[in-house]
């Protein structure tokens, strides 16, 4: 390496940390003596020296280094806990010429992301992983991590880690080294200057491997957490030496990058027609249905809302599918969550001739409310002049809005009369067709066999009937 006449903040860092909130945009958020800062500097220096700042993408984890993207002057992604290797995989596959860095802590990599790292390592993904091991969960205040030492006192092991109840510290390097694909597996430390320099060499080798597409490099770095360990920085370095090194011996477990050829992966072809064929959507464009030019709504932004289990999602999907058959642009966006267990569920459906931008209906011109909480929640966001269909079987109060057209339909009751509460989603489809005038029920019936592909004839017929009933109810009572 060329001799440097000055050692200063590397160009791998952003000059002024403009993404960092608050006034202190000239310094990191790390505590005094934190190992993250040292490793950040070694990485940033290597990126500058190899002139790859612009082609590097750093994946920030969850942990103290969650904000690594404040500092690195690279492409940055911050990802959910433990998922950095998974996201790094997609980044690396989509941009094979980029240098992908997955930066993770021990809680992130060895606990919640334990499987993610194994799978990425096993595939030999082209990335370099920096695994900062400080034997605790630092960001949350020093709880026991998978790498916590036997007997080590943490906030969640006040009597020390007991191997009988908490198991042994995970030695990730040794585990990764059991796999065939990785090319470089090493453990270094930041506990004194010679080891910081060794870490520097390891960082540079790992990044070089990623540049040369050698595959998977894994660099575990034993690092200080003075705040979490409740000691000063220099004693923290001593603590690594005395306590961590016996359990986490420093060594290069594998280095076969020299003899490994660059990894060439097939680049996936994304041909839209081919994808349609694979997904079985080839027939959709053959529809002969024509749009009704007199439809009450040319542009539908619909919310369907109700209890989980009321066919909210299937009504939305059915409407979107029917709209697609008529040649409209459609979107369907479900809102899942704990609602699946009995709260309110809802979905957004857009049906329009124009191209659709956002698929969530924040200002719906139509609402199908299947239960009272849904009516209360969504009634107020309908645009004036819109339409509201509500389920009188389950809602015993009138809507308060006077500036929308209200259709009171006993949706659940109609379905019950047909002998199966589950068909209420198709009653909704029929009611929708009558209110909007967008679809003709006889034409929808011609689509039933494709909507209910693989279902018994009986089911198809019942659902057909439900559409017809919903349609007729609205026509008879509101025209």
């Amino acid at each position, binding site marked *: 390496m060329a001799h440097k006449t000055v050692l200063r903040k590397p160009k791998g860092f952003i000059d002024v940390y403009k993404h960092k909130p608050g006034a202190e945009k000239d310094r990191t958020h790390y505590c005094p003596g934190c190992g993250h*800062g*040292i490793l950040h500097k070694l990485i940033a220096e290597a990126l500058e020296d190899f002139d790859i700042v612009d082609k590097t993408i750093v994946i920030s984890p969850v942990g103290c280094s969650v904000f690594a993207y404040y500092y690195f002057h690279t492409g940055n992604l911050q990802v959910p806990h433990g998922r950095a290797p998974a996201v790094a995989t997609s980044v690396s596959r989509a941009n094979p010429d980029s240098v992908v860095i997955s930066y993770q802590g021990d809680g992130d990599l060895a606990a919640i992301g334990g499987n993610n790292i194994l799978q990425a390592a096993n595939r030999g993904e082209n990335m370099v992983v920096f695994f900062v091991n400080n034997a605790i969960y630092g960001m949350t205040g020093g709880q026991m991590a998978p790498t916590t030492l036997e007997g080590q006192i943490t906030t969640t092991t006040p009597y020390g880690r007991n191997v009988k109840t908490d198991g042994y510290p995970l030695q990730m390097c040794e585990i990764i080294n059991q796999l065939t694909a990785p090319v470089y597996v090493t453990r270094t430390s930041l506990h004194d200057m010679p080891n910081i320099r060794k870490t520097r060499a390891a960082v540079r080798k790992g990044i070089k491997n990623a540049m040369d597409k050698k595959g998977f490099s894994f660099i575990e770095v034993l690092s200080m957490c003075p705040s979490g360990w409740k000691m000063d920085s220099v004693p923290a370095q001593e603590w690594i030496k005395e306590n961590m090194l016996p359990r986490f011996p420093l060594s290069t477990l594998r280095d076969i990058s020299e003899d490994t050829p660059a990894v060439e992966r097939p680049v996936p072809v994304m041909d839209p027609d081919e994808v349609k064929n694979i997904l079985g959507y080839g027939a959709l464009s053959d529809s002969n249905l024509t749009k009704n030019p007199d439809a009450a709504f040319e542009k539908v932004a619909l919310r369907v809302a109700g209890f989980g289990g009321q066919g909210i999602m299937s009504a939305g999907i059915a409407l979107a599918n029917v709209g697609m058959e008529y040649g409209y642009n459609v979107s369907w966006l479900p809102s899942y969550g704990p609602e699946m267990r009995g709260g309110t569920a809802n979905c957004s459906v857009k049906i329009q001739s124009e191209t659709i931008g956002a698929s969530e209906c924040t200002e719906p011109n139509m609402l199908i409310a299947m239960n009272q909480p849904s009516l209360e929640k969504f009634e107020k966001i309908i645009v004036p002049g819109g339409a509201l269909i509500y389920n009188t079987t389950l809602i015993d109060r009138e809507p308060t809005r006077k500036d929308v057209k209200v259709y009171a339909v006993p949706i659940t009751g109609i379905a019950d009369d047909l002998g199966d509460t589950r068909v209420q989603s198709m009653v909704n489809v029929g009611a929708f067709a009558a209110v909007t005038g967008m679809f003709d029920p006889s034409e929808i019936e011609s689509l039933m066999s494709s909507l209910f592909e693989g279902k018994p004839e009986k089911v198809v017929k019942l659902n057909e009937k439900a559409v017809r009933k919903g349609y007729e109810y609205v026509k008879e009572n509101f025209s």
Partner: protein
Amino acid sequence: MNENREYPFPEIDPDICKGCKLCVASCPKGVLVISERLNSKGFHYSEYVGEGCIGCGNCFYTCPEPSAVTVYMKDYVPEEVS
């Protein structure tokens, strides 16, 4: 900056330094000390005693704060200010 200062020498930004003392511990010549003064953030910052630096770079590499330490080597040529 003292323009007559002899190279090599470290330059420590007193306001960025968080006073962790890692540089003091890593300096082979013992020419870094913790100031008795506090900086604007309330840390006793690290400072160079003024002579004895050999330009090893230990303080730079052990400092966790990217912009706190700059080390000018023996053969550093100051950029001309026009």
